[in-house]
């Protein structure tokens, strides 16, 4: 096996955390059970990786096999990449419920003069029977139109459009575009959270504590539940609003009132789990209920990038 390929194997396997090593190697299914048993997994990681690379050499592993392993690693660690969403269309548009028919594509870009860079690949996840594809952000932005064309042709669509939706959490993006987020998933804490009131406080309240605004609290809970539902929200890290509007003022005069050019302003909301955070704003007393529709329409419209202009 040549030096560069061996090195690529070494680095790819080294990335894998030890807790996942066996699972990933078994999923890869390139090294046999017997071969895996010859490796002493109690050594230091570098030595284990060295042994594994030697086994790969024995099996005459090719670049394809290495790429395959890299895809599996990325599937396990999908949240380490940020995913964009693309929607393709043809006339007439056909769309069917997505099953787990997903195709993971790994692309290493090269040019006429350079060999493909294996260390900076782009990933595409395509769900057959649907017009959606998800790509991990590629550093080489110039390749994007090419990728778009390839996807459109390969999937027999006519046109590809980049949606204003982006997140680290591929499964949440899926849930949003396939409209699967409004089903109750695992039961763990989704049913009890709203009943206990805000922020997970003790449900056994002392009878010496009396809430004066019980009616208002219940209204807020009800409105929040109507808007956000009972189910866990899909996970997004931010929402961005670009404003390009003319300044409007009630006061007469003022420097900005006569300005013809629109004001430009960017507002970005970020959170480890944006939609859950928005859901808890009103019950926590930080905002009034109902929240602005600009915030609550995010999963419904499948967008977390908004441009707001004067009509």
């Amino acid at each position, binding site marked *: 096996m040549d030096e560069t390929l061996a090195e690529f194997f070494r680095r790819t396997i080294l990335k894998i955390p030890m807790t996942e090593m066996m699972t990933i190697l078994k999923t890869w299914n390139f090294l046999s059970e017997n071969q895996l048993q010859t490796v002493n997994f109690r050594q230091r990681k570098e030595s284990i990786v060295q042994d594994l690379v030697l086994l790969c050499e024995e099996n005459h592993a090719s670049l394809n096999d290495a790429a395959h392993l890299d895809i599996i690693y990325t599937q396990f660690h999908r949240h380490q990449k940020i995913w964009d969403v693309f929607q393709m269309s043809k006339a007439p548009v056909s769309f069917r419920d997505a099953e787990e028919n997903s195709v993971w594509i790994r692309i290493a870009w090269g040019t006429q003069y350079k060999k493909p860079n294996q260390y900076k690949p782009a990933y595409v996840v395509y769900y057959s029977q649907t017009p959606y594809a998800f790509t991990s952000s590629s550093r080489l932005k110039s390749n994007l139109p090419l990728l778009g064309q390839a996807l459109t042709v390969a999937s027999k669509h006519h046109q590809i459009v980049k949606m204003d939706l982006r997140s680290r959490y591929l499964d949440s993006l899926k849930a949003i575009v396939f409209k699967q987020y409004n089903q109750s998933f695992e039961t763990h804490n989704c049913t009890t959270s709203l009943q206990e009131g805000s922020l997970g406080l003790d449900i056994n309240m*002392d009878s*010496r504590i009396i*809430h*004066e*605004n019980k009616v*208002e609290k219940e209204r807020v809970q009800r409105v929040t539940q109507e808007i956000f539902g009972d189910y866990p929200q899909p996970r997004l890290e931010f929402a961005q609003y670009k404003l390009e509007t003319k300044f409007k003022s009630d006061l007469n005069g003022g420097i900005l009132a006569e300005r013809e050019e629109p004001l430009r302003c960017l507002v970005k909301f970020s959170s480890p789990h944006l939609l859950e955070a928005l859901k808890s704003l009103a019950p*926590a007393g*930080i905002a009034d209920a109902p929240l602005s529709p600009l915030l609550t329409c995010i999963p419904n419209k499948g967008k977390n990038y908004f441009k707001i202009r004067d009509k």
Partner: protein
Amino acid sequence: MSALRPLDKLPGLNTATILLVGTEDALLQQLADSMLKADCTSELKVHLARSLPLPCSVNRPRIDLIVFVVNLHSKLSLQSVEESLCHLDAAFFLGKVAFLATGAGRDSHCSIHRNTVVKLAHTYRSPLLFCDLEIEDFRAAMAQRLVRLLQICAGHVPGVSALNLLSLMRGSENPSLEDL
């Protein structure tokens, strides 16, 4: 929904009632829990409200002390408190009202200047307390303090009344406005 009056009801036997007013329910709830854990010879009752005026209730006991909780991180909380103050009978401001500002510890998150609440407390001639309610130890200490204030305002401490309290607390705590 009439304005709250301090002396329009008879007191309960050995009972002291405090009303905490603030927009952030979780903070009020935690403070209430801490107060009930504090040592106290009187029977305590804690009422929590988002704002004034309170909904009509015949069963509400006499309120001995009102604490307005302002979160320095939230302009909404200050606005809500300012609007609520209009619905309070003037007689309450004779020692039965206090302001509590939380969140001063995290300066980068503060959207309300400290001096704004100082001025507010000064305008209403009432004491201002600072405490980061999110930190358990500080909260417990403040809760203990509020319990003592409450007992005095309810008349359970012989020799000290709410009015005395007002002049006692005006000491070194509240900086003189000339410095602002």
